[in-house]
């Protein structure tokens, strides 16, 4: 089961290249959907307007490259923005699971489409691992971490527009696993599997799918604003600066430890 390519099992039942065309179509719809979202929300316009704003300091080209690398390594690869560790872990599971699932699916469909071209065990195993990771992270988020469930006590089964992305992602990977467990082939589960994927990739303008492009851009913009001194108008004084320690207002903290521990973050925000 773990070593059989479910996409090879459909090669005889559907026109040749069906899955290849389907994947190509989905890639195009993600690109078109994201572009439409960018134009509709005007996000790119504001992104570049912010970058072009007058700042106290000029950021050199080398610094921009370093910031871009830092954004990729810290903000994107480790989902730094999440302040709740469980959310961060669930997000990482889902993100890396989805990447694994996507890459291995493309490999299996384009490089090993028939039984005559068996896929390597590593690719097959990673496909399973990826889909399982999406399911674990997705269901964890869906039933326990979602803010309206965890904090507002709402039912996990109450659906709203904001759930379109998460639900279609979980549904597509769950159906992929069920379909592969059933041995692949073309049947009801296969068409449901395709439907869930179509909703996931075609629904980009109405779902938060495009956050995977917007969030890195926002993190990059934030780091640039810190580097150029504008800091989004946020204060930059900190207590560990020896100059600031001389302030009259810092008199009471002269003997205090530099790490006072956690304040309101000692408890999860679920008191409303």
């Amino acid at each position: 089961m773990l070593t059989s390519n479910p996409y090879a099992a459909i090669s005889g039942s559907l026109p040749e290249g069906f899955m290849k065309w389907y994947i190509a179509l989905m890639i195009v719809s993600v690109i078109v959907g994201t572009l439409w979202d960018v134009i509709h929300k005007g996000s790119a316009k504001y992104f570049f307007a912010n970058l072009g704003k007058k700042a106290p300091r000029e950021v050199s080209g080398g610094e921009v490259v370093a910031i871009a690398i830092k954004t990729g390594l810290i903000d994107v690869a480790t989902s730094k923005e999440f302040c709740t560790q469980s959310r961060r872990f669930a997000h990482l599971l889902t993100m890396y699971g989805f990447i694994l699932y996507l890459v291995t699916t493309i490999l299996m469909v384009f490089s090993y489409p028939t039984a005559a071209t068996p896929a390597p065990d590593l690719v097959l195993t990673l496909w399973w691992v990826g889909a399982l990771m999406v399911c674990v992270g997705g269901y964890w988020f869906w039933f326990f971490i979602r803010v309206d469930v965890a904090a507002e006590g709402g039912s996990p089964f109450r659906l709203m527009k904001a759930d379109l992305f998460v639900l279609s992602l979980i549904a597509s990977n769950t159906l992929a696993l069920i379909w592969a467990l059933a041995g692949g082939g073309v049947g009801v589960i296969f068409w449901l599997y395709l439907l869930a994927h179509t909703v996931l990739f075609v629904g980009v303008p109405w779902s938060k799918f495009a956050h995977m492009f917007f969030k890195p851009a926002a993190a990059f913009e934030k780091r640039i604003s810190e580097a150029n001194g504008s800091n989004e108008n946020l204060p930059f004084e900190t207590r560990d600066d020896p100059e600031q320690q001389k302030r009259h207002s810092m008199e009471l903290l002269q003997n205090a430890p530099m790490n006072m521990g956690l304040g309101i973050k000692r408890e999860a925000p679920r008191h409303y």
Partner: protein
Amino acid sequence: MPTFVYMTRCDGCGHCVDICPSDIMHIDKTYRRAYNIEPNMCWECYSCVKACPQHAIDVRGYADFAPLGHSVRVHRDEQKGTIAWRIKFRNGTEKNFLSPITTKPWGQCIPKLADVPAPTKEQRDSQLLFSEPKYIRLDEGDIHTLKAAGLKLRKGVSY
């Protein structure tokens, strides 16, 4: 001067919803991000602005007295026990403030009420509240008066 949320910064953690004394910070049903459901009822207390770990909440001044170009932003650094304000006036003036919000590590000076012995029947029937008379210093020989302290009230204004 009601608050508003930068949607691209917000990660929907719920700290602002938790802390809002007016209960007007809610999670949006479409984007699952925080938003102010009733700006007219905002107290402008800045609690949500200070609590937001992403600095995703800002306060918009009314256009009649805070026209374009001003900015009042805050960073509450709990780890260091400070709060910093950066005030930008529209004429270019900028003021920066840094103040303590605690002088002792968080959570160390919370009274452990569970460890305090339960009040006796006499204490329950008494007019004194918990920790009285000690914390109002009535156990140090009745009420502290000028006379008891050997002081006199002088007539007129003196410096």
